[in-house]
């Protein structure tokens, strides 16, 4: 940091002394000029579509704004409204937040646990066609969530779907609870386990066989050696996927929108749906309040990532 500052100061004084000769430019500046054609395009894109929105997004949360005129600074009012139990926005916010947290609490363990179990099953050395199975489990992740949702909507369809037909039931899955949440989790797990599965599988295959042999000699069964050998050996991939899966899950939006449209009775309306409705919905835009919600959600996300890193590193590195 300090070296670059001195370099820059040096650059300024030296250029003043010999402005015409580029050969006399200080090394630091020359290096920058040489590198700029390469990073320049990305730096411009990053400034416009990364940095400015990040700064502006926080500012908007402190304004009253309808996306049309200029944002008007109103201090903490948007946040006050969200926490004021008498206010209509408070009910919307708490409902969206609760449904999002519910999705995360149930969804993340499934998105970690299911692929972990599958990875262990696929890691048996005497299993054939492991890569075919892996491909089948991975592919839904490459299908757009709206197409996948339409497919599952059909599978769960009351009239035309195979589920009701084969079970001999007459359930309206997407419009009654707890089925509505059930369909959302089915779609989520179906589409979401592929990446984690591949990561766990390659991590497990990298665990030295000697460790299992030693555990076996010590009389450890399959479950024991999974807990005492496999899990500790793959703790970094576990941490990585847990953080990524949790942050992704807080952004849940497409599954409830496509399957249940937030119903029945707003019981699956998640925070992202509220943010979109408030900012870009049918009526006049309430971008300030929507931004305040988004910023709060962003803070929750960053806090959770930080806590996860802290806990996992403390527990594993002792």
């Amino acid at each position: 940091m300090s070296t670059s500052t001195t370099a820059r100061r040096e650059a300024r004084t030296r250029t003043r002394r010999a402005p015409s000769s580029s050969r006399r430019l200080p090394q630091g500046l020359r290096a920058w000029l040489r590198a700029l054609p390469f990073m320049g395009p990305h730096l411009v894109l990053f400034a416009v579509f990364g940095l400015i929105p990040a700064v502006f997004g926080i500012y908007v949360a402190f304004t009253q704004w309808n996306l049309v005129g200029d944002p008007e600074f109103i201090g903490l009012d948007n946040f006050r409204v969200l926490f004021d139990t008498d206010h209509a926005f408070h009910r919307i916010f708490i409902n969206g937040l609760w449904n999002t947290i519910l999705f995360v609490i149930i969804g993340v363990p499934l998105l970690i646990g299911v692929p972990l179990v599958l990875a262990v099953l696929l890691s048996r050395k005497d299993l054939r066609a492991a890569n075919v199975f892996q491909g089948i489990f991975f592919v839904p992740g490459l299908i757009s969530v709206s197409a996948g949702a339409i497919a599952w909507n059909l599978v769960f369809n009351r009239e035309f779907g195979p589920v009701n037909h084969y079970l001999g039931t007459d359930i309206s899955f997407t419009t009654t609870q707890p089925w509505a949440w059930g369909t959302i989790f089915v779609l989520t797990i179906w589409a979401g386990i592929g990446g984690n599965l591949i990561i766990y599988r390659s991590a497990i295959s990298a665990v030295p066989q000697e460790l299992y042999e030693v555990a076996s000699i010590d009389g450890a069964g399959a479950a024991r050696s999974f807990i005492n050998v496999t899990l500790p050996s793959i703790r970094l991939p576990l941490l990585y996927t847990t953080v990524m899966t949790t942050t992704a899950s807080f952004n849940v939006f497409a599954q409830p929108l496509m399957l249940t449209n937030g119903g029945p009775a707003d019981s699956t309306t998640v925070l992202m749906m509220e943010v979109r409705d408030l900012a870009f919905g049918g009526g006049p835009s309430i971008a300030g309040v929507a931004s305040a919600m988004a910023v709060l959600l962003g803070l929750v996300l960053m806090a959770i990532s930080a806590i996860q890193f802290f806990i996992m590193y403390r527990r594993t590195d002792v």
Partner: protein
Amino acid sequence: MSDTAVIETDQRAPGRGGADGVPGHPFPGAQGGGRGRRRRIPGGSPMRSRIALIITYVVLAALALIWLLPVVFSLSTSFKSPTEFAFEAFRMLPAQWVADNYIALLNDVAGYPVLRWFWNSMFISTMHATLTVVVVSIAGYGYSRLDFPGKDTLFFTLLAISLFPVIANLIPLYEIVARLGWVNSPWAMIVPGLAGVASIFLVRAFMAGIPKEMDDAARIDGAGDFQIFFRIVLPLIRPILIVIFLFAFTGSWNDFLWPLIVFNDVEQMPITAGLQLLQNMLGAYDSIGQLMASAVLAMIPTLVLFLVAQKYFVSSLSMSSGIKG
């Protein structure tokens, strides 16, 4: 280490000889003649392990069927005739295979231009992935091969800022895109994603494995940065650029929330956003087949990409957590 290799070959060889899907003896050691310590599954007797293997197959096969069900069933439904839904009992496969639903896509479906959506998506995803590769590869060269004061500070500052949750940026990002006049324009989906830092991180890490002596040698021969980049570095980083292209393409193809925000003109939408408008057709007997044909159309490009470039998807994911596959 070499001992492990022996065990592996020993175990696979008899399995390969086994008839249709039934593996041979999973434990060569148990067939006599082998050393006792070759036993692989800890604590299990050969018999118990054989049963465990069969249970594993059953569980995996059942799950695989469930995983394939929605794709197979939408495919089969897209080939059913409209009358079948109204008049015939439930069938997994069509009573009669017809292509009517796909032919219908050539015209508008319920007033919606599905085919147009498909080409919109094709243009958006191809452009986005191509530009991503261009921007990322040259920036990666800058951050990896060139030295300038504050390089690492700059790069990790970018990385840190980019970790800031996307949700909080969504509304201002819309404002910027709107001011650029890109509402209802494919550029709204092509350009903002180019600001991502994660791919540069990947390229940078990949380039670190290429010896710098090659650059120096070329430099002595009088090559400039651009020549070194195009002639030496670019050909060597092709594998990682293919991975980045694939992920950029599928990411862009499957993007859902952002197109719902920046498109309100039905003609300009990508197909994934368009499907959201179509989905209420699910209740109607006469259009359900067309809806499924549209969904199948939206699945095809990324599935084809996967079939063509499977190993790139798998290997890049294996690497992403810092574990070599």
